[in-house]
Each structure stands twice: as structure tokens, then as C-alpha cells.
């Protein structure tokens, strides 16, 4: 029977993501309607102080950048078709160092694909979406509790590093209702920007040894702010390729990569003595958890590694994977995007895939994949 502190409710991931982002300090949500982010948009209209309908996704990102540059934390959400339109403006925001979160809910592609069918086909798009190959931090919830915690981590990381961050999810995560005891949800702190203080010299991109520059909003009364999407020096003045400007651009790479340990999230369910690990993320993690139970129930040893920080690839992931003879990478696409991200295009004897499109991968299919890879060839 219900215990005193329990608060069992029936809810979806969209609700948790928006609530967590609001508590983290999201001040504006700008959306353009697209399935499967409809429930995120609906929740944002109730919860986020300013919730706007943009006329297209390019505008959505430009408005988001405008809000961010004036000190308001913006969130937007889309699926691949809309995200594709946003990419140039995400590059702009990355270069200007404007914090924001873009929620990308994957659905079956290519192109418009199937709006109401889930998928995991956008990982490498994110890996390559910044010209020059720089990583955006990308977080990926693997269950309802992660919808809460990774949403908060997204906002905090965006604010701390002054960068756009992507929360990568999928139709099945944001449009499925499940029971959850919400009394156990962690408290979320509001993310506060590191502000420039005092009347001393201010250069918009002057970092003084930090990874990201302190912030001042456009329109403040004390210092001129120069935001710039073109290659620029520390003042924010456009430069072709001066050493100072190239150094600033290099810092954009470094600030994301050098701090990855601070935002590395994963779940490692280690079975002592297991020679095989199931590696997965997002919606496929839930099936993998049941596959692990199935295998262990029949006396077969297996470990599970769920990545919740996908990009940049945390070095810790390679450390963990190195302990296993077989790695079975489970993802809802037929190309093997995570496999390619981690191991390139070359075939490896110890790297295996369980892949599928059009339906979620089932636990028995993952268990079968694990058994297959361990068969002597």
C-alpha cells in the first residue's frame, strides 16, 4: 500500500523535461510545431514564463539566440526536419557562446520519414553539425528519471560553458506514459550565469584563464558587448585568421572537451566476470535492461553500459569498454551510428551491433545478439 512519502503518478518524459528545465532556469521556450515534440510544447506553454510559437525553426533559433544574448535562458525542441533548419543558427550560437538547450526528439527518417514512429538516427548528425567538427555537449535520457536529471544537466552545462547543448531523445521517451514515484526526484538548482562584475575592463570574449568568458547582456549600461558569429578576437571584432582570433576559436573546442569529466553521465551495471557488455543509449537502454535480466536469469553473465553523455565521447567510456572482450552496441538504426562514432568504419571482431528500424528493439533481440557474438566462429 502507499507509503507516507510516496507520490506515485502517471506521466510522460515531456512533462519531466520541461519541469526540470524550468526549475533549472529556462525563461523562454520557442517552438515550431512538429511531432513528436507536441507534449513538450504543450507543457512549456503552461510552465515556462515566456512560451512562443515561431513561424519556422530558423526563426526559433534566432529568437532563442536573441533571448540568450539578453540574459534569458531559452529552450527549443524539434525533430530532424526542424533541427536541420536550425543548424546554421546553432553554429551561430556556438560561435557567439550563447547558452541554450535544443531538445531533439528522434523519429524514423530519412527526411520526413514517419512522424509517429520512433528512431535513433541523429547521433552522427549532432557529431558533425558544427562546421570544423567541434562537439556540442549532447545528453541523452534513458528513462523517466533521466528525463529529469539530464534535462537539468543540459541547462547547467549550457550555462557553465556558455554553449548550445542538445538533449537527444526520441518519440518513445517523450510520448509514453509510465508510473513513477516522483517523491524521489532530486532537487534541482537554478543555473546561474557567471557574470562579469565591476567597472574594470570588459572584453566580450576575454576569459582570463577560464574556459568560458563571463557574461554581460546586450544593452547593459556599463560595458559595450560585442557578440559575433564570424571568426573574432577577444573583443568580438571580426578577424580573418589572426592568431588571437584562431586562439579564440580553438578555445571553443577546448572548453567543451577539457571539461567533459564534469558532465560525464553513464550507468554501468557490471557483472563480475562478464566478457560481454551491452552498450546503448536512449530508448534502447530500457530494452537492454530487460535483456540483461533475461540473460542473467538463464545464468548468462553480461554487463550493461548506458551512455547518458554522448558527446563529446567521454574518455571514461573507453576505459570501461576496454575491460570487455565483446561489445554489443544496441541502437534503433540500421547503420550503427554509435558504433561508428566510437570505432569508426572499420569492422572489429569484438564489436557487434543489434540494430533495427521501424520498431523498438525488443529485449529478446538484444539477448539473442549477445548470444550470437559469443558463439565460436
Amino acid at each position, binding site marked *: 500500500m502507499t507509503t507516507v512519502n510516496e507520490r506515485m503518478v502517471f506521466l510522460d518524459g515531456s512533462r519531466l523535461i520541461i519541469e526540470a528545465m524550468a526549475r533549472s532556469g529556462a525563461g523562454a521556450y520557442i517552438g515550431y510545431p512538429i511531432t513528436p515534440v507536441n507534449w513538450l510544447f504543450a507543457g512549456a506553454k503552461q*510552465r515556462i514564463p515566456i512560451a512562443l510559437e515561431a513561424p519556422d525553426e530558423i526563426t526559433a533559433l534566432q529568437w532563442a539566440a536573441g533571448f540568450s544574448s539578453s540574459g534569458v535562458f531559452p529552450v527549443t525542441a524539434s525533430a530532424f526536419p526542424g533541427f536541420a533548419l536550425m543548424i546554421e543558427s546553432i553554429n551561430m550560437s556556438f560561435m557567439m557562446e550563447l547558452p541554450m538547450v535544443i531538445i531533439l526528439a528522434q523519429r524514423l527518417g530519412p527526411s520526413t520519414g514517419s512522424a509517429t514512429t520512433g528512431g535513433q538516427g541523429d547521433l552522427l548528425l549532432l557529431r558533425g553539425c558544427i562546421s570544423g567538427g567541434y562537439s556540442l555537449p549532447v545528453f541523452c535520457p534513458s528513462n523517466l528519471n533521466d528525463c529529469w536529471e539530464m534535462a537539468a544537466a543540459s541547462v547547467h552545462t549550457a550555462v557553465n560553458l556558455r554553449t548550445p547543448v542538445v538533449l537527444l531523445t526520441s518519440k518513445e521517451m517523450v*510520448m509514453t506514459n509510465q508510473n513513477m514515484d*516522483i517523491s524521489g526526484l532530486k532537487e534541482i538548482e537554478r543555473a546561474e550565469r557567471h557574470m562579469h562584475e565591476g567597472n574594470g575592463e570588459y572584453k566580450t570574449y576575454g576569459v582570463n584563464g577560464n574556459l568560458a568568458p563571463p557574461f554581460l547582456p546586450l544593452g547593459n549600461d556599463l560595458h559595450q558587448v560585442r557578440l559575433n558569429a564570424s571568426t573574432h578576437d577577444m573583443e568580438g571584432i571580426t578577424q580573418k585568421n589572426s592568431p588571437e582570433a584562431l586562439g579564440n576559436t580553438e578555445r571553443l573546442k577546448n572548453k567543451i572537451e577539457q571539461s567533459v569529466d564534469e558532465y560525464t553521465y553513464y550507468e554501468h551495471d557490471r557483472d563480475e566476470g562478464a566478457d560481454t557488455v551491452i552498450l546503448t543509449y536512449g530508448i534502447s537502454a530500457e530494452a537492454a535492461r*530487460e535483456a540483461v535480466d533475461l540473460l542473467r536469469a538463464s545464468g548468462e553473465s553480461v554487463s550493461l553500459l548506458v551512455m547518458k553523455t554522448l558527446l563529446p565521447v567521454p574518455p571514461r567510456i573507453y576505459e570501461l569498454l576496454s575491460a570487455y572482450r565483446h561489445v554489443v552496441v544496441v541502437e534503433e538504426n540500421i547503420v550503427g551510428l554509435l558504433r561508428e562514432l566510437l570505432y569508426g568504419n572499420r569492422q572489429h571482431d569484438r564489436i557487434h551491433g543489434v540494430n533495427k528500424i521501424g520498431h523498438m528493439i525488443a529485449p529478446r533481440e538484444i539477448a539473442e545478439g549477445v548470444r550470437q557474438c559469443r558463439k565460436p566462429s
Partner: protein
Amino acid sequence: MQETILNDLKMPYCPGCGHTVANKSMSKALADMGVHPLDVIVVSDIGCTGLVDPLLTCHTIHGLHGRAVALAMGIRMGLEHSDKKIIALQGDGGATIGLQHLLEAARHNLDLTLVVQNNMVYGMTGGQTSGLSSTEFKEPDRPESAVPGYDICALAQNAGAAYTARTFIGTDTAELWKEALSTPGFSLIEIVEMCPAYGMRKVQELHDTADYESVVTRNPRAVGLPHKAIGRSLLDGLKPIEHTCEAPLDGRLEIIVAGSAGEAIQSAGDLLSTAGITAGLSATKKGDYPITIGTGFSVAEVILSRQPIHYTGIDCPDIMIVISQDGLDKVRSRIGEHTLVIADAKLGPELEELAGPPNLVTRDFRKTGGSKGAALAAIAHWLQDNGFLPIEALVEAASRHKHGDKMKVIIDKAVAA
């Protein structure tokens, strides 16, 4: 002396370029109005117009080609009631690629000023014509090109701009600038200019080439601002589901409820899930319906389990509740050997071939529950027959619903039938 928004560096433009004059006019107008540089935000586009960015002493943001107006809208909404002057600078190329943004800014009538410096040409990339080029302006390589340009002043005015003006370089524009900058709402100034690299070198030549007129329109209307709400928690409003009774279910039960749009299939699925939670089980539910949600099938997939549920997919369900032909057509391929099908009587003949006794139960659920209550009636009937969940769990779940009283009547009728 009033500080100006232009520093004393040399303008980066070709000799005779209209942009030099336009920028000086902007700076002078702001100085005449006594506006301090830190009270100005200039949003500049890609293209020659944006080259002024390093010379500005005000706040600057230099973004993408064509998006300056959209970015300026975001800044204006972010700064809300601030009286800072926001000025977006674009060329005719930027205005062409970003035309939607220009119309949107006018429609919302946000308080900002857009200056389109129309020299009829893409000056950085080889002198191509834009959507704002005059029919009289010819590219050297395509002299036949004579598609009329957009009249952006007319477009902006129609879209709701508070103020629009078109003027020509070489005329005194100070008053236009001041009026635009002091008009509440969206103001647009189009300045028809010369590009000495690809166009013409004399003002008279410009006037001969340009087939636009000088215009000023005024349209006083309320200034747009986003609505700001005090967001309500999305969790506080959720009524906790008390665990008040017990279900005999030990393992996992997968149920598909299928019908047509408008037949409350999703609510029936929610109700069944809530009943399961009331009886101490874990529950998941997902909906499946065409993208046009008002027509065609509606399917709810529900899983009830004694153990926590991770994987929420159903291949071949244990129970299938089907109340319409749309629903049957959608889910018939998922009926397995072990699936118990509970269906509306009308579907009986067709289902007998697919399922057949003892795995088929048909009743006139539409008669019991009506079209909106047939699925609930079928669920109640099934629970009464099989006892997977106590019927009071379903009644308890119904009592949480805004139409709970009607639902309880249907449950009672279904149980009694």
C-alpha cells in the same frame, strides 16, 4: 559633446559606396536625439552592410546572412520593457533571404528599426541581382533579367509595420531616421543606394535606374511584446495515485485497446493503467494514431506488471480489446495464438476467422457504453470475467476523471450485463 555610435576609424567601404553615407546618417540621427551608445544595440547581417560592426561603439551582435531581423526580435523580447534602441542592418540580399523574418517583425510590431540598404546587388560575391533589385538594374552577364523586385515597404506595411519609409541616398534622411527611431513598434527604412563596384557611380544614374518611389507610411498600432506568465509546476497538479487494493497479477500483461478516433480509446487506456497502479502494479501506456488525429484508428498499448517495466513495446499482446473496424484493421496482424480478443459484437464474424473460441469474446459494447464508452465497457467486462484487476480499481480510476460519474455508470452496466 554627445558620443556617437561610430568611432573615428575609416569606413571599410569602396569610394562612393552608399553604406558610408547611410551609417553616418544613422549615427548623426542618434546623436541628435541624445541617445547614448550603450542605449543602442545594432544587429548586423552578413554582407557589406555588416562591415560597419567593428566601427560601432554601441552594443553589437553580428550574426548570419538574412537573419538580423529575427535575431533583433529575440533581443527585443528578451529585454522586454527596456527602452534600448534596437537597430537591424541588412542589405537587399539579406532582406531577400530573410523576407519571412521582416514580415514577422512587422506582424508582431515589436519595437525595433530595420534599415535595408538596397544597392540592388550582392556586392561581395560578384554582383548578382537580389529580390529587391530594380528591373532596370542589369547584371553584366544576364542583361535580360528583368523580374520586378519586391516592394518591401508595401509588404511590411501590409504585414503591420508601424512605420515604413523608402528614400534615396543623397537626399537628407535625418528626419526619417529620427521618426523611425522614435516610432513605437516596428519601423523600416529602405535606403536605395549605389554600389560603385557593380552598379552605378552617379546619383543621377541611380535615380534613372531605380524604378521605386520615395514613400512614407504610418500605421500607429499597439506595440507587440510576448506574454509572460507565472508558470505553474507541471508536477504539483498531478494527483497522486493511491495504492488502495491488490491485483492477483504476478507477471506482465500486455493489452492493446483499438478503436476509432473520437471513441475515447486513449482515455480508456489511461484509465486501465491508472487502475493497475491503484492495484499496486506498474503501468505504461502509449498511443498510436494517424497524424490526422481526428480520423481513422486510435490504438492504446497498455502494459501492467508486478515488476518495474523498462521495455514499453508490445509485439503480440495477451489481451486485445477491439471496438471498431478501424481499430481491427490496424491491429489484426498482431493477434497471436495466445491473444484473448474481446470485441464489439459487430466485428464477431470477421474475428472468428482470426481468433475463434475460446480466445474470442464478443458483446454489444456499443450498446452498453455508447461509442465513447464502448472501450471502457469492454475493459470492465474483461476485468469482471478474468479478475486480473479488482473492478474497484477501475471505479477508483474513473473517480479521478472529469467524466468519472458517466464512466462509473458504464462500468456498472458492463459488470451487470
